[in-house]
C-alpha cells in the first residue's frame, strides 16, 4: 500500500516536472515575445514620431481640421503621439498574441491566425474612419463658408448637419467593414436616412410651403434689384 502510494506520488511529481520542463521553454518564449514586443513597439513609436515631426504632420493635421476635431472630442494630445502610442500597442499586442500562441494552450490554438485574418478589416476601418473625419470637417467648413457668404440664415446648422451626416455615414461604413451587426447597421442607417429625408419633405411640403415660396420669391426679387456694385 505504502509502495503504491509512494509510486503514485513519484509518478505525479515526475509528470509534473516533465510537463514543467516542457512548458518552461514555451513560457520563456512568451516572455521573450513580450519583451520583444515592448522593444519593437517602442522602436516603431519612436520612428513614427520622428518621421511625423520631420514631415510636419501636426501642421498638416491642423490644416485638415483633424486636430481641432479631436480637440472638440476632448483629445488634447498631438496626433503624431496618438498614432505613435497606437502603433506601440498594435505591435506589442501582435507580439503578445504570438507569445500566447507559443504557450500552445488548446483554448488559444487559433488565436493568432484569427487575429491576422481580422487585421486587414481593422486597418481598412481605421483608414475609412480617418478619411471620413477629414471629409466631414472639410465639407462642413466648405458648406459653412459658402452659406455665410450667401448670407443664408442658419448657416452653422446646415454645416453641422452636413458634417454629422458624413460622420454618421462614416460610422456606418466602419461598422460594416468590421462586420459588427452588419444587417442592423445597414437597416438602421437606411431607416434614419430615409426618415430624415421623408421628414424634411413632409415638413417643407406641409409646414414650410409658404416660407419656401416666399424665400424663393425674395431671392429672385433680390437678384433682380440687388445693388449694382462691381467688385473687380
Amino acid at each position, binding site marked *: 500500500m505504502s509502495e503504491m502510494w509512494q509510486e503514485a506520488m513519484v509518478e505525479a511529481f515526475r509528470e509534473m516536472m516533465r510537463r514543467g520542463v516542457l512548458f518552461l521553454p514555451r513560457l520563456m518564449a512568451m516572455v521573450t515575445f513580450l519583451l520583444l514586443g515592448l522593444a519593437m513597439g517602442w522602436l516603431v513609436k519612436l520612428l513614427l514620431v520622428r518621421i511625423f515631426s520631420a514631415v510636419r504632420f501636426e501642421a498638416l493635421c491642423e490644416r485638415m481640421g483633424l486636430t*481641432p476635431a479631436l480637440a472638440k472630442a476632448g483629445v488634447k494630445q498631438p496626433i503624431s503621439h496618438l498614432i505613435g502610442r497606437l502603433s506601440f500597442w498594435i505591435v506589442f499586442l501582435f507580439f503578445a498574441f504570438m507569445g500566447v500562441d507559443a504557450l500552445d494552450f488548446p483554448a488559444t490554438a487559433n488565436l493568432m491566425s484569427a487575429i491576422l485574418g481580422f487585421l486587414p478589416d481593422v486597418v481598412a476601418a481605421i483608414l475609412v474612419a480617418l478619411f471620413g473625419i477629414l471629409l466631414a470637417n*472639410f465639407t462642413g467648413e466648405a458648406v*459653412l*463658408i459658402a452659406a455665410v*457668404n450667401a448670407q443664408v440664415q442658419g448657416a*452653422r446648422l446646415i454645416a453641422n448637419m452636413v458634417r454629422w451626416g458624413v460622420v454618421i455615414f462614416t460610422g456606418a461604413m466602419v461598422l460594416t467593414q468590421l462586420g459588427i451587426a452588419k444587417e442592423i447597421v445597414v437597416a438602421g442607417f437606411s431607416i434614419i436616412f430615409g426618415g430624415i429625408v421623408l421628414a424634411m419633405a413632409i415638413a417643407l411640403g406641409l409646414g414650410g410651403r409658404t416660407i419656401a415660396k416666399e424665400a424663393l420669391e425674395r431671392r429672385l426679387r433680390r437678384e433682380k434689384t440687388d*445693388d*449694382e456694385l*462691381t467688385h*473687380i
Partner: protein
Amino acid sequence: MNASRESVMGEPVWEQVQQQCPDVHKVDLLVALPSFNQSSTIESVMKTILAGLNVSLAHSSILIVNADVGSQDGTPEIVKRVVGSLLPLAVVQPLTEGISANPFALNRLSYSGMPAREEAFRSFFAITERLQAKACVVIDASVRSVATDWIDLLAQPVLEEGADYVAPVFRRQRYEGSLTNNLIAPLTRSLYGKRVACQIGGGYGFSGRLASFYLEKDFLWEKDAARFAIDSWLTTVAVAEGYQVWQARLGSKTQDTKASAVDVSMMLAQAVGASYHYMERYQDVWEKQSGSSAVPEIGKPIDAEVESGPINVERMVKGFRQGLRDLLPIWEIILAPETLAGVLTLGLRDDEDFRFPLTLWAQTVYDFAVAYHEKVIHREHLLKSLTPLYLGRTASLVLETKDGSPDVVRQTVEQGCQAFEALKPYLVERWRFQ
C-alpha cells in the same frame, strides 16, 4: 530664349498663322483679340480698331490675330468680313492642337467671362515672339466702349517710350471695383512699390520682351498658378519682375460680361489668391521694397468719379455680422489676436455708425496673407472666409464717403494705400517669424 520649348508651345498656333498669312514674317505690332461668342460686339470693336490703326499707326507693319476659343455664333467670320483685305489677319483656335484646356478652366470661367482666355493670351505671346513684334496690344472683343485711340494709348508707350507693360485705367462709378481699390491695388503698391490701379480687362499693351517672359515661364501657367485667371496676375508679375509699367487712361469701359455681386466670394478667392500666391514667389522682391512711386501714365486725365448706382450697405453689414457670428472659429485660426480683438469690437456698433478702420483692414489682409503662406487651413476656404470682412470694409467705405465730395472716395482709397504701406513692417515681421 528656350527655342525648343517655345516651338512646342507655339507651333500649332504658329502653323495656323503661317497658313493664313504666309508672307508675314516680322511685324511691328500685333493686335490681338480673344473672343468667345461675341457676335453682338465684335463688328463695332473691330471697326473701331481698324479706324484707330488707320489714324495713328498707318505706317507700321501690323498683324491682327483673333484667338477664338470655340464661338458658335460666327464671331470669327464677322472678324474676317470686317477686316477683309485691309490688313493681314489670322484667326487661330488656341485649343485645337497642342494646347489642352486646363482642368481648372471652369473655375476661372465666370471670373474672366471667357473660357480658355489664358490659352488665347499664351497664343498671342507665342505669335509675338515668332514675329519678333515690338509690341502686342490685346483688346477684349466684349467691350462696347472701345475707342479709336485705345490702340495708340496701349501701343505708343511700348513702341516709343520703352514701356514693357501698359495696364488699363478706366473711368468708373464711385464705388466700382471696390475689391481692386480696397485690397488688390493697396497690397500690390505696398508690396512692390508701384502705384498701379490694378484694373483688369478691356485692353493691355505688352512689349515683345515681356511677352517672351510670360511665354517661357512655366510657373505662370502650371501647377498652383493654373488656378488663377490671367487678368489677376498680369500686372502683379510685370511689377514684381521689375518691368517698365505704364498705365493708359482709356475712358469708360462698357462690357457685356460683367462681374456681378453674386460671385463676390469666388472673385475674391481668384483675385486675392493670385496676389497671395505671387507673394510667396516674390518674397525676396517685396521684403526689400519700401515706399512707393507713381508709374508713367498716358491718355486724358480721368474726370471725377461717376455717381454710383444703388448700393445695399445694409446687406453688406449684415454679411459682415453673419461672418462674425458663424466664421469666428475660422478667423480665430487665421487672424492675430490683436487683429481679431479689433474685428470683434466692430460687431458692437449700429449699422449707421459701422466703421471698419483702414489700419485694421490692412492688418486683416496681411494676417490672411501670412495664414495663406502658413497653410493654416485649406487655402480656398481661407480666401473665401475673407468675404464677410471685405464686405464690412466696403460697407464702411460707403458709409464714410456717401455724403462727401466727388473726390472723397479716391482720397479714402489713397489713405488705405498709405495704411498698407505703413503697416508693411508688420507683414514682414509676421511672414518671417510666424
